[in-house]
């Protein structure tokens, strides 16, 4: 495989062709904030948290879907990027109802952690306060639309790791919703194998195991990684 050399935050980095900027940066110990990215499933470039600057290009590029190229000069931090990232988080917190104090994921939530790391101490935009459902029809799991950020991680793990194809997105714009099968209650789904992978994948308190009380929802991502490694690299040992 051809190797590409590039600069990320003034650091010389080399990466194999076909690596994303995000991957190359992580290998070099540079962290770029992400929300929709999840190791092991393909990227969709939806959350825009990972946007970086490229010297000579007026456009910002998503690090998770942009491949490295020879001689690239990438900046992952700037006032402008920090401002945008913070605003994106504010938009998310204003879009649905995030009441951390009463959330199963409180303390184990990527959205929350991201807000801390990006210095989002309050939301300037108008809270939309939509009236949203909580689907508790499934015997083992629940879905709280109040907390969903539409990252589609659940959709992607359900299709591409579990292969069940239960989860999907319906509607558009701010009315988009994660649905099960053809928009029926999760508990009525005929395809859901109750594998729980979507629960592991979800960055927020939107998907949870039933019976959790606030602050208990911890994830075990190694389960997903194990499966993907087993499948792609034939590594079966934990």
């Amino acid at each position, binding site marked *: 495989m051809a190797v590409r050399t590039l600069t990320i935050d003034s650091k010389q980095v080399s990466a194999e062709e076909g690596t994303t900027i995000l991957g190359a940066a992580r290998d070099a110990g540079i962290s770029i904030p992400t929300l929709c990215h999840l190791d092991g499933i393909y990227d*969709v*470039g*939806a*959350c*825009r948290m990972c*946007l970086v600057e490229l010297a000579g290009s007026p*456009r*910002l590029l*998503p690090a998770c*879907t*942009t491949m490295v190229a020879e001689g690239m000069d990438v900046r992952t931090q700037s006032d402008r990027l920090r401002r*945008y990232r913070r*605003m*994106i988080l504010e*938009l*998310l917190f*204003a*879009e649905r109802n995030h009441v951390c104090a009463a959330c199963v994921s409180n303390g184990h939530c990527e959205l929350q952690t991201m807000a801390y790391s990006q210095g989002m101490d309050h939301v*300037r*935009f*108008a809270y*939309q306060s939509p009236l949203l459902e909580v689907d508790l029809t499934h015997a083992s799991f629940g879905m709280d639309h109040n907390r969903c*950020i*539409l990252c*589609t991680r659940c959709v992607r793990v359900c299709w591409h790791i579990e292969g069940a194809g239960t989860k*999907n*997105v319906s*509607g*558009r*714009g*701010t*009315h*988009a919703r994660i649905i099960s099968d053809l928009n029926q209650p999760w508990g009525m789904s005929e395809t859901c194998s109750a594998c729980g992978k979507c629960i592991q994948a979800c960055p927020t308190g939107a998907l949870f195991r039933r019976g959790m009380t606030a602050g208990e929802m911890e994830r075990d991502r190694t389960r997903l990684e194990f499966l993907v490694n087993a499948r792609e690299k034939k590594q079966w040992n934990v």
Partner: protein
Amino acid sequence: MDLKDLLALKEKELAARKPIVIRCCTAAGCLSSRGEAVKERLERAVYDAGLGERVEVRGVGCLRLCCQGPLVQVDPDNLLYERVTPEEAGSIVDALNGEKVSVARGNPNDPFFTKQQSIVLANSGVVDPNRIESYVAADGYQALHQALHEMTPKAVVEEMLASGLRGRGGAGYPTGLKWATVQKAAGAKKYVICNADEGDPGAFMDRSVLESDPHSVLEGMALGAYAVGADQGYIYVRAEYPLAIARLQTAINQARRLGVLGSAVFESPFHFNVDLRIGAGAFVCGEETALMASVEGKRGTPRPRPPFPAESGLWNCPTLINNVETFANVPAILRRGGAWFAGIGTERSKGTKVFALAGKIRNTGLIEVPMGTPLRVIVEEMGGGAPDGASIKAVQTGGPSGGCIPAEHLDTPVDYDSLNKLGSIMGSGGMIVMDDSTRMVDVARFFMEFCMDESCGKCIPCRAGTVQIHGLLAKVLAGEATARDLGQLEELCDLVKNTSLCGLGQTAPNPVLSTLRFFRREYEELLLPDPFAVKLAVPEGTVSVEIR
């Protein structure tokens, strides 16, 4: 079918022509005001008058001055009749015998018509869109024959490069370059897609082309397919265009039967099939990657580019995707040469552009003008200015992705670069004229509402940002906003423009930004004087109070 057959068909069709032709618009605009009944009455009147040998009543596509429809035009005297009702239609036929006509006469020598230059619309209003013979009589499919037998695919691309044609779907990417990229792309299977999703509010250029002259689009697609090495094409049309769909399907069937589509076209090794794909009417499905996802049967949402469709498009194969109007230009370019086309228009914007002229203006309808025509010529001379003595305040181009050009810039030539400089875009060709009764913040809010409703919801800045921007605009209009809100509005526009995934979000703030640029006062006049004033609603039973 070979060239001899094609020319024979043309001769036969021309020979059968009758001395008098009554052309009757049967495009959607006129059909919606009983155009079909007008045509039937005309046919009956011709029959009743025993003129069947001398007079042909031909259903044609759009005659352009749609606001005066149903329109009927009579050759060879070039008489134009406006607002024809089925009841009066017969009198047009009576007039052929010298009787007095009771239908309102239009002026075919009005600047609205004489300032036009037709390439894309050359056949529109002339040929019968339901008969391939009619298209063949207008030299149709000759370019395809010529390309297949006399030109290499490379030579076709060269001709497109020489023409300087830029994509008419909005972004204005050079068509020749796109064709060259797909041609060079590695892959045994390639596709051609015609983007007929046309979803901008107020735009109906593509619909009109499809309804008036579907074969020119098919021929353009076939030429594209030959140039890039594709054998399958799709036309993605929105379901709201049933007439366009019906005429396209008729055209495809006829073209197959004639042997200009299908296998061994013109007895060459080239084969090419075209199928229709019907979109459910989501604006975002006009975005090329969303469109392709939709054709594949998936949820129509955009994906990041690169890879561009030219490298990896439909089912990951190299795909040529162009707009309806782009394809409709192609047969003429190959028939008359790229250099001829490049001689029309301006340095960096070649050829003509079709616009759907609408809004507060006397003549609304479809126009095709050379690139570089000053906006003033379009709205004042051709459009006849604002009705009822009102004065023109601004012209909106580019729909929800465009901007408002204020009256003081009416001398701007209409080309890609000049419009960009004014913070607007050429877009696909919607042109909405506004008079002094229009509130610009209202205009901005209208387009933002459109983008908010049409956002696919995939990326956060567009999905949630448009909602916030729309809320702020509504707040400004309600007289409840402060300078702080205006600052936030600008910050959000900057965010949505620079961080959204696809063109919808990236351009959604344009109407706000351009009205802020030219009409900032209209925003500021609506603001509350105190930057921290708030209006909080208290529930029923108590009076709503304004604090401070």
